[in-house]
């Protein structure tokens, strides 16, 4: 079986997929990749199923080598990447020949970078998913020396790229009223919308703390509330008035009131905001939110149409490996050198 050998690895690198739905009643949240959009992008670049597992890298990647030629794609937060010493474009698919070094360095923007492989990573699924959910003991972080199994790849296409979007540096986030929004006084809600927040360095897959100058957002008349369901994107206000955006690995229930919920299509922007990036939230009506989200979901399913051949910098054209990548139809199972 083809494998991806992990020679060096950054902290927090883990196998992820779109998560483990169906266990909310048992207290287990869906979880999965912090940036779902990146999973769709990788699947579009490699023309394969969005169900296949990927490698999620937090701020930095690692050094890898494949036991046989494989197709790879790189999405999410851009990380300085080289294949056999040559710079490899981000947001694109490439051939990784056998026994050739792939190095993925620190991120230039954003937080979560993703390495996709043709055929997907085929670690053992638990409860129907390969997603690593460390806080509950499902799966573990990737370690140096490990070889990750890779599934059969039916695809051939490489050298494709997707247009870069702008979700990697914070910005404006749309939120919808949630079950406790009305419990917050109108002036608190208005102040929340008017505030420019900074993403605190204290952030992980469970939640992201938001910093702001001035007073917090706790409601003076707020009664103690009965613990209630949490969904990813909920913005909870803790006792001292600090907002936290709850992310993919959030708990299923919680006792802090929620001032609003981030639209699913804007959640990758929150996940990717690097420490210190500014975030601003604005309410949209439930009807508008549904329309915005429906458009975004439809666009995600059509991402494959946006994949275009990677245009190489002419200065690198003399490089045989890169030149072959432009061809786009190199077999993943043969050395490109034999065809040149």
């Amino acid at each position, binding site marked *: 079986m083809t494998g991806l050998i992990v020679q060096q690895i950054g902290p927090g690198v883990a196998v992820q997929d779109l998560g483990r739905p169906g266990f909310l009643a048992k207290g287990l949240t869906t979880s999965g990749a912090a940036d779902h959009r990146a999973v769709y992008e990788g699947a579009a670049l490699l023309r394969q199923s969005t169900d296949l597992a990927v490698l999620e890298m937090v701020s930095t990647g690692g050094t890898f080598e494949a036991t046989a030629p494989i197709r790879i794609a790189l999405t999410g937060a851009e990380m300085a990447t080289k294949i056999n010493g040559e710079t490899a474009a981000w947001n694109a698919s490439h051939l990784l020949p056998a026994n050739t070094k792939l190095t993925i360095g620190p991120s230039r923007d954003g937080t979560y970078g993703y390495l996709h492989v043709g055929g997907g990573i085929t670690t053992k699924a638990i409860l129907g998913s390969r997603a690593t959910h460390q806080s509950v003991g*499902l799966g573990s972080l990737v370690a140096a020396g490990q070889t990750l199994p890779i599934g059969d790849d039916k695809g051939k296409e490489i050298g494709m790229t997707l247009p870069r979007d702008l979700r990697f540096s914070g910005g404006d986030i749309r939120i919808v009223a949630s079950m406790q929004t009305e419990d917050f006084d109108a002036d608190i809600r208005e102040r929340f919308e008017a505030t420019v927040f900074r993403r605190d360095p204290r952030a992980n897959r469970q939640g992201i703390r938001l910093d702001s100058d001035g007073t917090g957002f706790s409601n003076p008349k707020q009664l103690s509330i*009965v613990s209630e369901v949490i*969904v990813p994107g909920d913005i909870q206000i803790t006792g001292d008035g600090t907002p936290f955006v709850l992310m993919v690995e959030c708990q299923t229930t919680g006792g802090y009131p929620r001032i609003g919920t981030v639209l699913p299509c804007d959640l990758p922007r929150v996940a990717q905001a690097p420490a210190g990036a500014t975030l601003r939230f604005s309410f949209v009506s439930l009807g508008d939110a549904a329309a915005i989200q429906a458009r975004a979901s439809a666009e995600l399913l059509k991402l494959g149409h946006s994949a275009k051949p990677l245009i190489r910098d002419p200065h690198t054209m003399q490089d045989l490996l890169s030149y072959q990548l432009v061809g786009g139809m190199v077999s993943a199972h043969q050395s490109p050198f034999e065809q040149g």
Partner: protein
Amino acid sequence: MSQNHVDCPKIRSVGLNGVLVTFGDKATDAANRAAIAFRTAVDEQEWPEVMESSSTLVSAFFRTDLAEYSYDRLRARLNEVLQSRDWSNAALPAGRTLWTIPAVFGTSRAPQLAEAAEAAGLTTKEAEAELTATRLRVLTVGFAPGQPYLGTLGTAWDIPRQVGLSPNIPAGALVAAVRQICLFTKDTPTGWRHVGQSAFQCFRPRSDIPFPLSPGDEVQFTSITLQELASIEAHNADGNGAALREVLK
């Protein structure tokens, strides 16, 4: 229904991710029974727009995609089921499980029994007797996978959480507050008081029963000695902690 007919039950959207039907403002036994029964009744109808459901202390939650399915339509549909009967006296679903779980009360393994008993105005002996005499119901499962909140204890047990957090109460612990017992899935810092210790694993991801407990199931604790617990822990490959399981008729 009751006089808060206007306020409860109430139906609310939760982001674009689902719809919540709430049966009370406070965590009462009646609201919890209603939430469990209502969730079961809707689940039995297998609506295509509901991807999964859950229940909390006082609410039933139906996960859907409100970008794909109209909130107003789902709300109307849920309201129709709501109006079809009085949910506050609905029977709990059939096929529930009764677990009899052995636990040590007090001692070095559960050092806050005396403190909790005092807060409840009971002697340590009385407290242990109440905790092992009361058949408890899984009110909800949450916070950690498979972790049950059990209730409802008598009014004496309406004891607040302690002010400071205990740094690390172990998995299998029985902790008490607000007329409930929580049985910990994993080591957890908590403000609830550590009154008992079992070897029951609430989350067994690699077993045939990954989540032994579901909302509506019942739990009966029995008292064992320190030596008995040590012996159970030494032979606990299945994670059952010598608990017995039977299906309720």
